[in-house]
């Protein structure tokens, strides 16, 4: 009896202390300090490096000008390379985006509107290239199209279908960017009011015309958002591009290679230009996306009726799926097949030393130890980054979601999106620049700097969905809680958090996956330690393909598992 009573007493004391602490934290001044802290951390980790880079470019303009335009030996050769690489990057991104729309929109339509066996599997497969590290994806695509192991076997050729270069870069980029288009419009198509389509049906419009004039204009904003993401991802991608580019260097690849040669001033300038281009794209889309109409009001009744026939629809669906499988799915997973081909010997010469078993487990350079070490580093970084990012991103998401000043809210909202569109190698470089010897001189490249770099590019991936989760919680629950006497922080703990649980898990997995798979920023900030996507690039460059295939397969398996967990969590959220 007395034990029982003492327990109750302790419980009461603890609860009262907690409530008192929470009510102290809910004080206006304390909350304001919290808000300021949240924004400060955001500026320090995400915006700071970019601003610092900008500042340094202006302050050290003379030095940069000499290095870029008037080098005593090279003249303006550096600038020429720079322009060429940016031109190539933009050209590739544009072509890739067009393909993304051609492949991505019909697949989104199929996934949203048709019911068939295996739809769920197709849905997962479409998302997969977003989760798989691009270096693994690029390697697999290179093996499929660019070597004599893949497609060229079908017609018994000794060389690949295409060599490293623009073509291969485009093939690789389409594979991992088209899901951004599909994903950003699939949900919107599913939520469209079918009544509108039925109404236009009764007025005599054929399905194709309805899709074009009624449904597509409504998904316009989603489509633009997806397109811009696809474009910027293509523009800024490093991991896959390093593998498939050969001598044709895109801008992010140039950043990495200059950085390796420690050409700091020129790298700074190129990173700066890439950042400016991405920011211009982001803001112009934010400003103009709503104003751009789809000015296609002419109807071609006969032609469109033909396009709407069942036969054409079936062909179109078939072709989109075929494109998906031939250009995305098979090349993306080809590396696994390759791994089995080269398991213990070369399929061509039969040489066991060219096989995976020898290269990974038996060769004197102890690749297995490297792989294990890199895997552990990758997992450690991903875990730490996820924890830090969740802790600093949640208050930011709450702040943005609850903000009443519409203008300020829109401004913060745009700021948060910045790391999404900036090439990660440029972002990584600016972090190196701010924190390293050229800036505050706190860190040198290595584990800590990698963590800061990863936090800064995963931040947006974490904040964005959390804002959505906060917005989805009806305000009446907050109000009810405070009416019954709970302070703001108590309300957050007892009411908001339970609603947020699945959203938090989903954001954490997204962050973890992104951190696991990033290459560009990691290469710049890494020092001597390797993460597994970077190790894969190293193996590739050392031409030990079977070992690279082994590392790629591990990466693919891990990301696949994460993706499936993520999907089950988000589906549960929807059902609730």
């Amino acid at each position: 009896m007395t034990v029982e009573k003492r327990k109750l007493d302790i419980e009461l004391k603890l609860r009262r202390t907690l409530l008192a602490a929470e009510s102290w934290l809910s004080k206006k001044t304390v909350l304001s300090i919290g808000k300021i802290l949240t924004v400060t951390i955001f500026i320090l980790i995400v915006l700071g490096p970019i601003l610092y880079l900008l500042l340094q470019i202006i302050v050290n303009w003379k030095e940069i000008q000499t290095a870029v335009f008037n080098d005593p030996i090279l003249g303006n050769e550096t600038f020429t390379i720079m322009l060429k690489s940016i031109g190539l990057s933009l050209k590739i991104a544009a072509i890739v985006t067009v393909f993304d729309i051609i492949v991505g929109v019909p697949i989104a339509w199929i996934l949203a509107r048709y019911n068939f066996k295996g739809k769920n599997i197709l849905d997962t497969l479409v998302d997969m290239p977003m989760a798989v590290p691009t270096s693994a994806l690029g390697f697999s695509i290179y093996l499929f199209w660019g070597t004599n192991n893949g497609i060229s076997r079908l017609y018994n050729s000794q060389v690949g279908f295409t060599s490293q270069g623009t073509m291969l870069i485009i093939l690789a980029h389409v594979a991992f960017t088209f899901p951004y288009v599909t994903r950003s419009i699939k949900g919107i198509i599913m939520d469209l009011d079918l009544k509108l389509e039925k109404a236009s049906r009764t007025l005599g419009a054929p399905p194709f015309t309805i899709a074009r004039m009624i449904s597509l204009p409504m998904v316009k904003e989603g489509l633009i958002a997806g397109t811009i993401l696809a474009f910027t991802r293509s523009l800024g991608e490093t991991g896959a591009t390093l593998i498939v580019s050969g001598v044709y260097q895109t801008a992010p690849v140039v950043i990495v290679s200059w950085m390796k040669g420690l050409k700091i001033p020129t790298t700074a300038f190129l990173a700066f230009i890439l950042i400016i281009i991405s920011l211009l794209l982001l803001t112009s889309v934010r400003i103009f996306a709503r104003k751009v109409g789809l000015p296609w009001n002419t109807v071609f009744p006969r032609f469109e009726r033909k396009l709407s026939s069942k036969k054409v629809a079936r062909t179109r669906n078939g072709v989109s799926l075929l494109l998906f499988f031939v250009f995305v799915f098979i090349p993306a997973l080809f590396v696994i097949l390759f791994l089995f081909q080269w398991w213990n010997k070369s399929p061509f010469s039969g040489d066991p030393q060219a096989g995976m078993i020898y290269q990974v487990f038996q060769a004197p350079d102890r690749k297995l130890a490297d792989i294990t070490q890199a895997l552990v580093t990758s997992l450690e970084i991903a875990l730490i980054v996820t924890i830090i990012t969740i802790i600093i991103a949640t208050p930011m998401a709450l702040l943005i979601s609850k903000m009443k000043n519409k203008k300020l809210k829109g401004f913060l909202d745009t700021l948060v999106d910045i790391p999404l569109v900036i090439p990660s190698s440029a972002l990584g470089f600016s972090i190196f620049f701010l924190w390293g010897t050229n800036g505050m001189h706190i860190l040198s490249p290595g584990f800590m700097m990698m963590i800061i770099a990863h936090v800064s590019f995963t931040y947006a991936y974490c904040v964005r969905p959390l804002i959505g989760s906060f917005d989805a919680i009806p305000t009446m629950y907050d109000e009810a809680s405070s009416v019954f006497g709970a302070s703001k922080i108590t309300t957050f703990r007892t009411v908001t958090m339970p609603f947020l649980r699945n959203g938090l898990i989903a954001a954490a997995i997204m962050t973890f996956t992104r951190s696991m798979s990033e290459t560009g920023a990691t290469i710049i900030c890494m020092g001597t330690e390797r993460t597994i996507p970077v190790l894969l690039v190293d193996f590739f460059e050392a031409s030990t393909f079977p070992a690279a295939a082994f590392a790629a397969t591990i990466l693919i398996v891990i990301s696949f598992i994460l993706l499936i967990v993520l999907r089950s969590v988000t589906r549960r959220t929807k059902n609730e």
Partner: protein
Amino acid sequence: MSEIHFKHVTKIFGRKVEAVKDLSFIIEDGEYISLIGPSGCGKTTTLRLLAGTIMPTKGRIFFDNTAMENISIQDRNIGFVFQHFAIFPHMSIWENVAYGPSVRGRSKIDIENLVEKALKSLQLSDKAELYPISLSAPEWQKTALARVLASEARILLLDEPLGALDQKIREEFQVFLRNLVKKERLTAIHVTHDQAEALTISDRVVVMNKGQLVQIGSPTDLLFTPNNIFASFFVGESDFLVGVVVDDREKYSEVKVGNNIIKVKNMGIERGKRVVVAIRREFFQIEKVSVEDKTRQDSKLNSLPGVVIQDQFLGLLKRIKIKLENQQIIEAKIHAKNPIHFKEHDNVRVIIDPDSARSFNYPKEGIVSALEM
């Protein structure tokens, strides 16, 4: 004691939107008050001002002589029933009801007693372990009320609390709610768009329009003696006859409407002034007249001649539309079982009960803008 006093309260949203304008009234302890008015009239804003989710721009609110401006929501000790109940979906019914005392730091034993008592008085004891998802709307409603009781609030704010219930259950709940509030001696403020509900449930009703108080009074006051045009228009249904006071005696005045003179209750309007006479549609009596009778006005009957232009069946009532001599169209609501059958083109006389006719000064801005919502 929980007396609520509004003193010249004004709430402005943004820069211009005056949601509530110079609102002053007193709610007595233990009173059941309803706020009604067209949408956007400021009734929900008034409730939110009471709850403390928003603060007045001008003026003060007192609970028992304590000014509320520096007292935050969680310290006001009010109970709030939301339109959609806001039952926390991740807590069991028991946990929902225990929420108030537990976040206020009450001891476990106190919490248990309070929750058991609240659940018992709402007949929810057997549902305590269930989660909201397995309950019905009326049970959510009860949970919301139990949660208020357990929080020991003395003031109960209800925002369209019955809006999400079916008509039948709603009527049962009106009685239930009133009895509960009276039994627990709470002061209740109830916002609704349903006049019948307000008239059934409350001790007094506050009618609001455009952020201002139109009339506050008992249900019978509002229904039978509205004290301005808007109140008589908004509560129930009225028709308005425009005329001039031609004579005023002690109890009744005579008003000239068109070419006819009718006798109405004297409400202190001087001779020669234009008046608006408001009459409830249910209070008109109609009689058929023959063609010879048509021109002869029987002053004893206090009536106006007219012609039936439409006869409509409404269920328990019939609506008869009549065009008066001055071309104005009025509607009379009579019992559906009325033995006389009125049809189009029938000549009728509309008999007016002088005691239930209310007359007001003709508004400067005209009738239409006086009735604008």
